[in-house]
């Protein structure tokens, strides 16, 4: 009968192994969901862990804004994240309406510009970190080759010579895409805003999944004009890509990267530690390495190759309106342009 015995030993050790792996997975660590671009993630992780050596920061999910928002929403009954960090404020307001966050006042939050902190609750449900701003990336080499002039306004992009030469992010997946759409609707009102997008749609070559891709494709000459955001454009220009970063005349949409602690977070103490760290001067200085507008006044230094006058062109963004109408705008957009089943000539 010894092989029954042996079999039992094997099964017992298998069960033990499985249990062991199970506990290893459930280990205490800080799970962070973020939409921040990957090239910055390692740096943030390193800097935070240097100041908080006993916390193991894990990027639980990193994807485009729309994806992270949808993921958080889908996990509502069984949240996996401890803190949502570096996600569009519009999305955070939207999730806050779903009762997703635990109010918390990070130490030193009073040092931040109050317009970047949740105005509705005390302690705030979300706190802004820095702003990212819409811009157009224009490839000068391809522009000349294709006879596409440099645009100076959004309306320029609807002109016939731009047909098939413009790419923009799909607002359903990209936060940049959403702030573009939301800003056009805020600048011109619903009716004219949609009319603008109708004619822009005629010129769009394809919609991308991520907000930085249009600019990356413009930098690589795959397309002439990419609707993207200023930081990505400036960075690519600094790397030597033949792109101009343009802030259109009518005004530019923007959104805040912000954080909020998830209600019932498994590692509440660590989540609060990250919240405290995120409002420090040091953190704000790090934000400023890539972004021109940060939550703590007086910290920001100018970023090279950022479009001139872009701060003056930032629209008066109504977060509550944008969050409240987010679902409606997105499904309307999807109905109008998502069904792009014909190739553009």
């Amino acid at each position, binding site marked *: 009968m010894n092989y029954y015995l042996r079999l039992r030993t094997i099964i017992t050790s298998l069960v033990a192994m499985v249990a062991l*792996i199970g506990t290893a997975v*459930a280990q205490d660590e800080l799970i962070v969901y973020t939409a921040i671009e990957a090239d910055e993630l390692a740096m943030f992780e390193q800097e935070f862990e240097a100041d908080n050596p006993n916390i193991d920061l894990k990027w639980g999910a990193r994807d485009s804004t729309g994806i992270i928002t949808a993921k958080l929403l889908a996990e509502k009954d069984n949240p996996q994240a401890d803190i949502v960090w570096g996600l569009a404020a519009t999305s955070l307001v939207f999730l806050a309406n779903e009762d997703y966050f635990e109010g918390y006042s990070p130490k030193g939050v009073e040092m931040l510009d109050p317009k970047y902190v949740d105005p509705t609750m005390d302690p705030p449900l979300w706190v802004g970190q820095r702003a990212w701003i819409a811009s157009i990336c224009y490839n000068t080499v*391809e522009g000349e080759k294709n006879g596409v002039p440099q645009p100076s306004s959004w309306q320029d992009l609807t002109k016939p010579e731009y047909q098939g030469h413009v790419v923009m992010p799909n607002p359903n997946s990209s936060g940049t895409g959403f702030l573009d759409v939301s800003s056009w609707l805020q600048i011109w009102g619903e009716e004219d805003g949609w009319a603008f997008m109708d004619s822009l749609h005629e010129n769009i070559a394809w919609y991308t999944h991520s907000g930085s891709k249009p600019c*990356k494709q413009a930098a*690589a*000459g*795959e397309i002439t004009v990419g609707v993207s955001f200023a930081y990505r454009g400036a960075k690519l220009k600094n790397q030597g890509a033949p792109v101009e970063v343009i802030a259109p005349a009518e005004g530019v949409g923007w959104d805040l990267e912000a954080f909020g602690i998830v209600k019932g977070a498994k590692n509440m103490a660590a989540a609060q530690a990250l919240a405290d760290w995120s409002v420090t001067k040091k953190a704000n200085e790090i934000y400023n390495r890539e972004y021109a507008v940060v939550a703590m006044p007086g910290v920001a230094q100018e970023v090279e190759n950022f479009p001139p006058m872009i701060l003056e062109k930032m629209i008066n963004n109504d977060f509550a309106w944008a969050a409240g109408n987010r679902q409606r705008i997105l499904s309307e957009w999807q109905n109008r342009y998502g069904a792009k*089943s014909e190739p553009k000539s």
Partner: protein
Amino acid sequence: MATASAIVTKYSRDDKFQGGILVLIALVVAVAVLLPLFTIFLKSVENRDGQFVGILNYVEYFQTPALVASIYNTIIIGVVTTVIVITLAFIYAYALTRSCMPYKNLFRSISLIPLLAPSLLPAIALIYMFGNQGYMKELMFGYEIRGPIGIVISLVFWIFPHVVILLSTALSTADGRLYEVAKVLRTKSIRTFFKITLPAAKYGVMSACFVAFLYAITDFGACKVIGGWFTVLSLDIYKQVVGQQNFQLGSVVSVILLLPVVVTFIAQRQVQRKQTAQITPGSVPYQPKPNRRFDLLMLLYCIAVSIILFAILGTAAYASFVKFWPYNLSLSLTNYQFNLMDGGSWQAYRNSVVMSLYTAFIGTAVIFCSAYFIEKTRRYRGLRSSLNFLSIVPLATPGMVLGLAYLFFFNDPLNPLNFIYKTMIILVLANIVHYYTVPHLTATTALKQLDVEFESVSASLKVPFYKTFWHVTLPICIPALSNIWIYLFVTAITTVSAVVFLYGHDTNIAAVAVVNMDDAGDVAPAAAMAMMIVYTAMGVRIVHWLLTHFIEKHTQKWRQQKLTSD
């Protein structure tokens, strides 16, 4: 008489044990295959809150023109790809089997190269060749590579080796006597081709058509990278689930994708069954005779195809080293700094290697053992034949559908196995299940070649079956085991469809990283990661080949002796 006595005798210890194992296998199949697939159907008739809504989701689906268009697109892509790849591969296989051209083995190996790459790789390469900054853009005559053209070319590249293998087999089993007769009757060679060659290979060609069609309609990678505005069903599943987190509509699309897949699959099984009866004991193997013009023509064709295959692979390799396409063509390793890229990391690459090794080792052991118990157990005929049937199911399950099924099934907080979600365990499990069928058939074939007498003799000598298994069955089956191992390793490291829904924050894998980096616009790093997969698969393949030769030389000598004594 033996069976009669078997019925009379009581169930022995071995019988009971084997029965227990078979029940265990059935349980595992239920948990790993049937229940997850069933949840897909469940989800498709539920609303977001989990209430039963009947066909409401289907109604919503068919009222959305963009989604319905994908059904048509998918079928078109499938048909066009099949026609092109079968034509190209048929000539290639014809050259390999029916000509006397030189370097046949070399060309056979070259045709298998696409197997080492994920289907994302040809798509990325095509953008560098024919995209707006492509170096051969003029060849597109103004047409856009992003869309159906790019998808079809990528799929043809990727499916080519599979079809070459199938068609070579079909063409190599010809009855030489028919050709002798044709020659004696002075039949024209064209007529011989249509009257003898094609009819004989008919079922093989049909079977290859179905396989090509199946691969084309279920692929996700090529469409994701080069589809542009063009959508297909597998891409819709991804968009609904990952993009919108609309799991209900995702399941609806999965069920709709399953329909053509299942129909094609059944047709393929029917045809394959007929194929086996082609060769009769009186047949004489066909031997091609040298024909200078024809052999030269075939050689040129194979060279041309090989050049195209290498051009696609080479473009991806080159683009991965270029600093900033197209404005700075100097070479560097910047694109291999995966840690700085959106969605990629060296960790992902390491995870892929680990996952593929686990899949290969555990998969080989599990699949071979279960094939052994299904094949060599004397009793429980009904259970065994239903298990045999179930082992075919994964082949008819698209990777996207399996992945989604696992997401639903294992992510459910009520599932006691919930903890494996997003871990290495679920990735390995999904891969083993997804690629179960081919190794299972390989193992079964190898086991069938072993005489049943081994088991009967052991049983009568009261040797426990596991001793026979360890000392006789296993050593004889080493070649089959080794084939299974390499098949599982290469498919696991190149696949993206089944695992794209299942990876977690520290279990990201290379093929998924290719998708995500391309999504973020980091196309050159995506090419670099895809090339890392190719290098690894190629390296492991070569080491495997050397080892196999070494082992065969030292352990399988008896095979040669047997052959010579025959």
